[in-house]
């Protein structure tokens, strides 16, 4: 007799479930993976011996990095004349590369900090590697302003050190702001990244099979033991670091844009630069995150963790920031026309039809403005080849954009007699390619030696992590009306 009254209830709840299904959230970790599977899969990448492809790729990228280092050494020992800089183009590929790399870093901080504050749980699959990418990109970026001063051994002049020459840096200079902004950015990113790593290093310590591994992971895990009395302070610190990184990341590229915006050159002297640069940085950075993550998820079989949903969301952010950038490009042209300033108008006319015309048509128009528009379509966001194609376009396009802004602003001086073009030398070329080698080598080392996905964070998004979760066999603490039973 007991069975009879319960039967309609079951049917009712099934009906309710089928009604709710279209609105149900797609899980962030697919195939109902449990905690130990996540630990196993993510730590496994670090614990298993390096696969052959890793050695091959690393050898190639490390060789490129080494040749890039050689170019840097050659440039330092010989002089800045080894680069193609001359009047009127005094900032060429060096500053282009600097802005390119520092911009890439911004996506990592956006994912780790801003998405954390916005409670975007999907970030947990990608934040660790995106933050690592940030650090490596900022390292590559820092090379260029350091080197392009010409006499690197004088770089300490940048630091506010009391000395017997009575030389103090000019704190009103945007270049000085840049020194502080970039070094603060790098330092805070390292602290944030390492803080996130500590619980995962503890996992690797507890799983270590050899003494040397146990010792090294143990040292860096600081004796972490997952105590809730620790998590309490740790989570507050993590939240605050996210809160501090958020305005910081916005300030860094704003300050980078001040290097240009506070000057008096047509195309540089604009108030739109700070938000335009920040949007461009996040745009280019997300493309680089996807460029790294799409192969990584396929190679290390992380498709259950970095799901099509994650790729979809990142593609949407590329579309959004790409549209910001498109708006900024159009607004620049409008303001040039509307200002009535002949130099401004000429500079923008020259951008489209001048000697660097194809940089604009290919880089800015096709790569940055048009290609991300594909992401309006769901099947484009879900097709990894389309996503990869767009990301490659954006990677290239953002480099071209910086080149157009910098060299495009310089090569046509106010006096036509001073006009000139920028011709890169082999040292220019290989220094840039060298930084690509440094970046990829560092990322490969990161993937080898540290967990590329934040294990302690990804576990939180699994349903079992909820303190009110009841496994299907158990009694469910949530009543039919949706109210929690007390």
């Amino acid at each position, binding site marked *: 007799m007991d069975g009879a009254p319960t039967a309609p209830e079951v049917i009712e709840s099934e009906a309710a479930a089928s009604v709710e299904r279209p609105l149900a959230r797609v899980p962030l970790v697919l195939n109902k993976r449990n905690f130990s599977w996540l*630990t196993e899969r993510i730590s496994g990448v670090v614990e298993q011996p390096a696969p052959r492809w890793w050695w091959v790729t690393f050898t190639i990228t490390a060789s490129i990095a080494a040749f890039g280092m050689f170019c840097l050494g050659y440039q330092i020992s010989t002089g800045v004349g080894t680069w193609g800089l001359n009047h009127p183009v005094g900032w060429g590929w060096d500053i282009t590369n600097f802005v390119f790399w520092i911009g890439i870093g911004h996506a990592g901080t956006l994912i780790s900090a801003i998405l954390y504050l916005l409670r975007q749980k999907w970030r947990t699959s990608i934040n660790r590697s995106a933050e690592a990418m940030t650090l490596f990109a900022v390292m590559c970026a820092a090379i260029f302003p350091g080197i392009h001063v010409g006499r690197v051994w004088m770089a300490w002049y940048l630091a506010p050190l009391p000395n017997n020459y009575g030389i103090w840096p000019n*704190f009103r200079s945007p270049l000085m702001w840049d020194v502080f*902004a970039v070094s603060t950015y790098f330092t805070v990113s390292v602290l944030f990244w390492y803080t996130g790593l500590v619980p995962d290093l503890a996992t690797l310590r507890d799983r270590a099979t050899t003494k040397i591994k146990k010792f090294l992971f143990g040292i860096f895990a*600081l004796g972490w033991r997952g105590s809730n009395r620790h*998590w309490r302070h*740790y989570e507050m610190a993590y939240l605050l670091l996210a809160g501090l990184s958020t305005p910081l990341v916005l300030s860094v590229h704003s300050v980078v844009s*001040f290097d240009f915006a506070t000057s008096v050159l047509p195309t540089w002297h604009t108030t739109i630069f700070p938000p335009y640069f920040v949007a461009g940085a996040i745009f280019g950075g997300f493309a680089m995150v996807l460029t790294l993550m799409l192969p990584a998820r396929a190679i290390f079989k992380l498709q259950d963790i970095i799901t099509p949903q994650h790729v979809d969301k990142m593609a949407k952010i590329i579309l959004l920031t790409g549209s910001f950038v498109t708006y900024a490009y159009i607004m620049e042209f409008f303001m040039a026309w509307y200002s009535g300033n002949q130099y401004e108008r000429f500079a923008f006319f020259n951008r489209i039809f001048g000697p660097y015309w194809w940089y604009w048509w290919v880089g800015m128009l096709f790569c940055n403005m048009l290609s991300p528009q594909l992401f309006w379509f769901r099947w484009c966001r879900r097709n990894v080849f389309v996503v990869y194609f767009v990301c490659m376009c954006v990677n290239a396009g953002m480099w071209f954009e910086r080149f157009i802004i910098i060299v495009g602003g310089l090569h046509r001086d106010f006096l036509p007699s001073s006009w000139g073009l920028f011709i890169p030398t082999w040292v220019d070329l290989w220094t840039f390619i060298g930084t690509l080698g440094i970046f990829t080598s560092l990322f490969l080392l990161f993937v080898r030696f540290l967990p590329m996905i934040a294990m*302690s964070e990804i576990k939180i998004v699994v349903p079992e992590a909820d303190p009110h979760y009841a496994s299907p066999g158990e009694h469910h603490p949530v009543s039919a009306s949706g109210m929690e039973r007390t």
Partner: protein
Amino acid sequence: MRTPSGHKVYAMAAEYPSAAALYEAAKVVRDAGFKRWDVYSPFPIHGMDDAMGLGKSWLSAVVLIGGITGLLTAVILEFGPSWLIYPVIVHGKPYDWRTVPAFFPIMFELTILFSAFFAFFAWQLMNGLPRWYHPMFNWERFSRASNDGFFLAIEARDPRFTELEARELLEQSGGQNITIVHED
């Protein structure tokens, strides 16, 4: 307190099958009136601070001090040389306090930098880390605390601690593999 074999007792500890079970057990131990106890999990469990009867972390106060220190450092660093010690007129701009808008970016950056350092060191110092040795590591099963294990330990230094009561409480709350963890 020592075991018959002469080991010093650190705690009575148990393992729980899930985050939800640990959460419920924490409430039981809290309501029993224990003060010196802790739970261990591979990730922070939402709401566990309340279940353990812990308040909000006051780490934010430390970070505020850090931020103020950073701001003051920048103010002294910028105004000291540029206004008082070694004034230099650049671009015909004022060099005294009226030049402050141009000093904002560095004030901002150093505020962030110092706050971040304070946050970073505060979470370690407030947690007593780095500490590479801890009695809980003596328990073999505990290595799963960083993987998929959920643990609760009632420490022997708690004034209310008796072996019998602690074991009973852990049993009642659904603890498994209940054991004494040795200090050495």
